[in-house]
């Protein structure tokens, strides 16, 4: 692959992720609306929100770290997109591998922690403390799951993991080969999205949206963009690990939207757990399922 092709892919992959991510946000809000027997937002609503937030005249900045925090939050995911292979584009997935990807997916939370820290709003501080606790909770099952999949495939290269699954069709998919790991991964993915019942750090009625409390205008717009990337990254990572990636775009998008629809449909039926309940739940069930799944992989 020539340098020009690589450059085009590196620019195209985050752009595609953004567009698909906006549709995922739309899907999330439409599912919520349908469950509550509402009509829901129009098709371009996520775009309207983002354009409006970026065109606000007031930008209240609390300092340099506040600005950098938002850039880190978005940049972490933009970098992660280049490591996620999509049909026809591999980017730098071959060189990065899954461990780098996991590290990059943690950067947004850390960037947000830096940015919110400078806002000096007590609600924001409580929110970010909860967000990092939640990260601690879901990262342990996530790492166990990723380790199990990588061990079974014998590689940490995401392209090879996909190739192994695509070799024999449906029967060689991660989800059919390692169902326990797939279930544990689904729960960990749900928690990493920060939706109900694991919505401990947004909690609008309690701590006024936590980390987002001091964000307005472009700062909130940046976080809306980040949410698009977050939904895309999480669901595509799951599709690559367990559902055999995508052979073509139709296949790929169908899988990633379906995977995301599962936690979304569950999310709007439940209230919220407390922080310690989340920790107890995440360290008990997905970890247990994941460890048994890994044991099966070793056998």
């Amino acid at each position, binding site marked *: 692959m020539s340098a020009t092709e690589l450059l085009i892919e590196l620019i195209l992959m985050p752009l595609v992720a953004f567009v698909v991510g906006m549709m995922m946000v739309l899907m999330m*809000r439409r599912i919520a*609306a349908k469950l*509550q*027997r*509402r*009509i*829901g*937002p*129009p098709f*371009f*609503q996520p*775009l*309207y*929100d983002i*354009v*409006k*937030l970026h*065109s*606000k*005249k*007031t*930008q*209240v900045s609390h300092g340099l770290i506040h600005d950098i925090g938002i850039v880190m939050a978005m940049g972490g995911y933009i970098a992660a997109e280049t490591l996620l292979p999509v049909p026809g584009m591999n980017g730098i997935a071959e060189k990065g591998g899954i461990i780098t990807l996991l590290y990059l997916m943690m950067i947004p939370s850390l960037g947000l922690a830096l940015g919110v820290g400078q806002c*000096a709003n007590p609600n924001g501080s409580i929110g970010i403390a909860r967000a990092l606790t939640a990260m601690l909770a879901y990262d342990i099952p996530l790492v166990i799951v990723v380790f199990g999949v990588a061990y079974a495939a014998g590689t940490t290269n995401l392209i090879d993991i996909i190739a192994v699954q695509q070799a024999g069709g449906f029967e060689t998919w991660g989800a059919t080969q390692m169902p326990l790991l797939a279930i544990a991964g689904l729960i960990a993915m749900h928690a990493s999205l920060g939706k109900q019942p694991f919505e401990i750090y947004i909690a*609008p*009625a309690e701590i*006024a*949206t936590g980390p*987002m*409390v*001091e*964000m*307005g*205008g472009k700062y*909130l717009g940046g976080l809306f963009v980040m949410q698009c990337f977050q939904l895309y990254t999480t669901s595509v990572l799951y599709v690559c690990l367990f559902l055999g990636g995508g052979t073509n775009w139709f296949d790929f998008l169908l899988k990633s939207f379906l995977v995301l629809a599962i936690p979304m449909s569950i999310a709007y039926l439940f209230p919220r757990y407390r922080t310690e309940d989340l920790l107890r739940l995440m360290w008990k069930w997905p970890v247990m399922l994941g460890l048994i799944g890994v044991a099966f992989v070793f056998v």
Partner: protein
Amino acid sequence: MGSIKQIPVVEAKRTNPLARVFDDLVRFCRSRSLFILHYCTGCGAIELPPAMTSRFDMERLGIQPMVSPRQADILLITGYVSIKTLKRVILTYEQMGSPKYVIGICSCTVNGGMYWQSYATAKKLDEYMPVDLYIAGCMPRPEAVIAGLQQLMDKIHSGEASSWEDYYRNYDYYLGNQQKLFGEDWQTPTDVISEAKHYDLLSEGTLGDHTRLLEQHQKPLEALEMRLGHEQEEPAK
């Protein structure tokens, strides 16, 4: 304030031919995505849950509730504002990001409503902050609330909803009314005059007798003291 229409509107010079298209897009998006901060002071608040939930569903118009003034576009004041409440409403309003819109719901915000004779109620909301739209009624039904919001959307799209600029242009008038109610040492954490300079909205009405009074006793803002744990200062005896 009756003189809103007399203010000369200066069109910004645009050399880029696409600028007009872009401005139109921005105005359209602004009108289609409205985050409301509902300051539920009175009985009008009871009409908002049906307007938001499955019966009337505001989200299909792109309107959704937000919880912090920094994130919101619309300040929705649903009912009578007592003098103590009005202080909080003004603090909230000044923290919102421009362009911002104020909607007064119920007749109490229009003229005091049934609290007309109360000594503790601010009668007319638009003496203290510029109001874009009133939805009268006691209380207006959800249909009326949504019709009002649609009217505001049309105003935003056509660029008429610019009353937030009026707060900067006639700050002296609004501050004077606020001082009449709260006393002469009234001061908010937001430096409105500097903001007016920043937005290039400084006009004749911005500075005056009342802002001079403010400057005389204005205390510079200091960051809150950081304190860990439950330590509290000994109360002065």
